[in-house]
């Protein structure tokens, strides 16, 4: 096993650990904001590590550049959706505070 293989394995392992931590937080945290916190922070890092591992494993600059692009857009998309989710959660909470019996409207 070469040093490159070892590095790939280490990066993959670390990435998966962050994913696992993120998922655990998503399941265990009490409210939307902290769940998002767990997901975005841990998963972005996890994805980055896995992408890095894949880029090294791919072994060419072109592949690495493509993977970097994929990672970049995944991060931007994740950031956008968590913004939207957080906003939605705040709106829902505000509405629930206003009236206890507010019906659920729109995309939860």
């Amino acid at each position, binding site marked *: 096993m070469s040093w490159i293989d070892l590095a790939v394995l280490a990066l993959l392992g670390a990435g998966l650990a962050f994913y696992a931590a993120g998922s655990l937080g998503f399941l265990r945290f009490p409210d939307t904001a902290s769940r998002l916190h767990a997901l975005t922070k841990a998963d972005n890092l996890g994805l980055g590590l896995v992408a890095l591992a894949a880029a090294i494993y791919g072994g060419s600059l072109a592949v690495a550049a493509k993977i970097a692009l994929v990672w970049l*857009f995944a991060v931007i998309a994740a950031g*956008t959706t968590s*913004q939207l989710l957080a906003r939605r959660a705040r709106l829902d909470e505000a509405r629930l505070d206003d009236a206890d019996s507010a019906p659920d*409207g729109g*995309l939860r």
Partner: protein
Amino acid sequence: MTFAFDLILCLMILGTAAIALFVRDALAAIAFFIAFGNLMGLAWLGLDAVNVALAEIAIGAGVTGVLLILARARLLALGDAATSTGSPLLLRLGALAACAGFVVLLAAAVLSIPPESGLDRVVAPLMPGLGIENRVTGVLLAFRAYDTLLESFVLLGALVAVWSLAPAGAWPGRPADPGMADAPMRRVAGTFGQLLLPVALVMAAYLVWAGSDLPGGAFQAGTVLAGGLLVAGMGGTIGLPSSDQPLLRAALVLGPVVFLAIGLAGVAAGGLLVYPAGLAKALIVTIEYTLFLSIGVTLALLVAGPPMPGASDPDPEGKG
């Protein structure tokens, strides 16, 4: 990939499918359906069918998922939560027995057929004549181009069918705005849309080009374009077009009509959809580029739904 991986994947596919089908809440069902679609994409990768994996994830999970979420949201606005309600026990037992028996029969039939890539041997020697490498593209746009031609009109016809549902007084008009109602959310989505739309266009164009030799093609690329258009539409980056805009209509029919015209022009070379020697790749790429544009716009409008009354848009720019 190892057999253990395939086995776990298959079990996960069945599990997500079961949850998607039987969970009470409609949104959870759709979320699991999207997860199911993505796992199906992995299954296609496991089968070494990258073209199908792209199509399944983009169309089967992506577009279908957005469609269902939007439909569910519109139903919910009318007070219909689309929750699954139980049917009579007798019906369920009968259906269970019938379906279980059917699965056993079907599985027995499936297992009686040895898996083999029989037609690959027929396709492979024909590929050099086309000048492209991707065999699936070869089947879709040469050997079975007739199916694909008709299918492009099915997609167009589905949009016409959706449009026919427009209520009285809404025609010609715009679909109901699928965008975010809340201003800050709209801004966030809008910024993302401004970034995504040009990238989606470049990405889609690349997918078509790559589709000649690598996995990809008009349908996968069209879906990427549709995704970009939809995200941009949700953020208000582009306005939804009115159904009677000539430019829009032209964008919709362009791909199918170019395909049909090239097919008929083949008559000069010997018959319907015959590509003259040496021109095959050029013609296939021409068809794919026009088709991808039309597919993208059609899919986006299919998701948006029929024109609705009072669905006027703040910034009516055309698209397409």
